[in-house]
């Protein structure tokens, strides 16, 4: 019997029992769709974390000002301002794991260009900060040391500012007013995009730290060389924990904090936290995929069950086919083909459904859409294996029937 004939014959007997075929297929559909969806969700989680880490910059740590305690009332983060530019300089020289320590000021406010304006975040930073956070310069250039020292009124703007104030035109050479003070735009940063939780990385203006301190209101709060926070970049991911310890020790010493007294600053290791979260989300997704795999297996058992029923019901048909010349292998192939057809059709629909589910999650659930062709191929292959594996035993049983007994069966 030729393969095309086996397929035709399988199609005919599957059509003969439409409801049964549909229900059996459903088991495989659900299994495959679940596997595809779960693997996709897992990959999405991973992508989201990777994006977040990318937005953050690799191997980045933050040092924030600590908490003011006045009469037992604790004021929350950044209420006791004690970090200075000198601390940043000391960290670079005193903490061997740290490559960059960039002191920053931050303000929010209205910026104006011509007759349009926009509310945004203004960072007082140096080129070191841009390097630490891995901001790429698009057009124009970055700050030079002179500008950083001399409170020069220059600015680098993000893509969102270009869209909002300059209608997408290259703004290098233009002037924006920040708190009424004119800043000349010397450069733009390349897009970093939105973080997965919706924050726009590109809605930002950078000015030299010294300029922010001496020309903007924020300088009145951070007097002398005080800063809002210090962004650190470690030499490698492995050194993040060491770096955290080194910086804590160094700052406690510099701030003359007695042993046992609380820190007056916070060191935040966000990258490590994100890595840990990525790992746990991955584990969760694989766990779900494993459960989905089990449902595929259950679907396979459904196929086996229905094939056994089918073989029993069609005993006479098997006998007749044998009488007119079917060899054992023909009968075996026929029933395996039927099981395989059910599982492959289920596989195709399941893949489509799984991908549809993923697209829906991406659309309504604010989740990155990751379609992995490999997982579709694997799911199809696996469902084919399920069909062959669970179809084989009933088919073998059919092929071993004695034609005389089979023909006599009512």
């Amino acid at each position, binding site marked *: *019997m*030729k393969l*095309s*004939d086996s397929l035709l*014959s399988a199609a*005919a*007997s599957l*059509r*003969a029992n439409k409801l049964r075929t549909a229900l059996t297929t459903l088991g495989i559909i659900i299994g495959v769709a679940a596997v595809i969806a779960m693997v996709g969700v897992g990959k999405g989680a991973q992508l989201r974390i990777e994006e977040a880490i990318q937005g953050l910059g690799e191997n980045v740590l933050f040092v924030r000002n600590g908490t003011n305690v006045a009469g037992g009332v604790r004021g929350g983060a950044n209420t006791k301002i004690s970090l200075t530019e000198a601390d940043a300089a000391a960290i670079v020289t005193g903490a061997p794991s740290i490559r960059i320590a960039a002191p920053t000021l931050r303000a929010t406010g209205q910026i104006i260009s011509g007759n349009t304006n926009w509310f945004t975040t203004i960072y007082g930073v140096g080129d070191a900060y841009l390097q630490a956070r891995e901001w790429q310069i698009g057009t124009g250039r970055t700050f030079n040391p002179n500008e950083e020292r001399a409170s020069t009124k220059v600015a680098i703007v993000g893509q969102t500012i270009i869209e909002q104030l300059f209608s997408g035109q290259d703004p290098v050479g233009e002037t924006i007013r920040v708190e009424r003070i004119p800043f000349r735009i010397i450069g733009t940063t390349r897009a970093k995009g939105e973080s997965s939780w919706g924050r726009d990385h590109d809605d930002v203006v950078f000015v030299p730290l010294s300029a922010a301190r001496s020309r903007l209101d924020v300088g009145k709060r951070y007097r002398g060389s005080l800063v809002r926070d210090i962004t650190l970049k470690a030499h490698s991911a492995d050194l993040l924990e060491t770096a955290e310890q080194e910086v804590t020790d160094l700052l406690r010493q510099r701030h003359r904090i007695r042993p046992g007294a609380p820190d007056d600053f916070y060191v935040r290791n966000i990258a490590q936290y994100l890595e840990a979260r990525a790992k746990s989300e991955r584990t969760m997704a694989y766990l779900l995929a494993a459960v989905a795999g089990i449902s595929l297996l259950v679907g396979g058992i459904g196929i086996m069950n229905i094939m056994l029923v089918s073989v029993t019901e069609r005993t*006479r*048909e098997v*006998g*007749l*086919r*044998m*009488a*007119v*010349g*079917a*060899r*054992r*292998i*023909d009968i075996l192939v026929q029933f395996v083909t039927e099981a395989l057809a059910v599982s492959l059709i289920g596989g195709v629909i399941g893949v489509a459904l799984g991908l549809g589910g993923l697209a829906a999650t991406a659309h309504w659930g604010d989740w990155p859409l990751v379609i992995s062709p490999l997982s579709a191929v694997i799911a199809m292959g696996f469902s084919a294996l399920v069909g062959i594996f669970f179809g084989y035993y009933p088919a073998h049983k059919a092929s071993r029937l004695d*034609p*005389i007994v089979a*023909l006599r069966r009512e």
Partner: protein
Amino acid sequence: MKTPIIQARGLSRDYTVGAQTVNALIDFSIDIRHGEFVAIMGPSGSGKSTCMHLLGCLDTPTAGKYQLDGEDVSTLDADALAGLRQRRIGFVFQSFNLLAGASAIANVELPLVYGGVPRVGRLAQAAAALDSVGLTDRAHYLPTQLSGGQMQRVAIARAIVNRPALVLADEPTGALDTQTGQEIMALLAELNRSGITIVLITHEAEIATYAQRVLFFRDGRLIEDRNASGDLLVRPPSGEDKL
């Protein structure tokens, strides 16, 4: 003279049912020539079905030797027997045994499917077979849309589609009314005249009159072998006569 199409010598078939051994067929020997029309008669359990299964290569004998068209088939395995049935033998059953989901022509072409005949040739051959049983206009009907007589005609077309030397019919009229049964018998007789050897099992003496030769079985043994005019034929020598 040509080799007889069927040469059986000392065929026996035992079944073991629990601890008991049933001798379904005992020491059966016969020669059937090409073109004969033979009826097998006998009460239930007389061994006629077992004999039919052995002659039809659906079963292998416990003892004895069976040559189909000069080829010794008593020692072939299941798959070799299947091939032999496909090429040499056509079956007609009491209950038609048509595939319910397949059209008349699809049923007829089934033996060719297993013979590996390409689709185009297969359809032409099946159409020709349907034509010879007078059902050309019913080729695409499902069995449920056909009458009993028509279904048996489809089954006969299926039996002859691979141009077999031998057609075995197991009570082909058993499920039909007298009128239709006679039509079916007339059709078989016509096929026989075209050169096909037919061996038929029946309960009814009237049906047996279509045959040129009638075998009677009782208790697993062939007890009588008569020609159409009622003459007792010389019993073929059994057992000791080696092929």
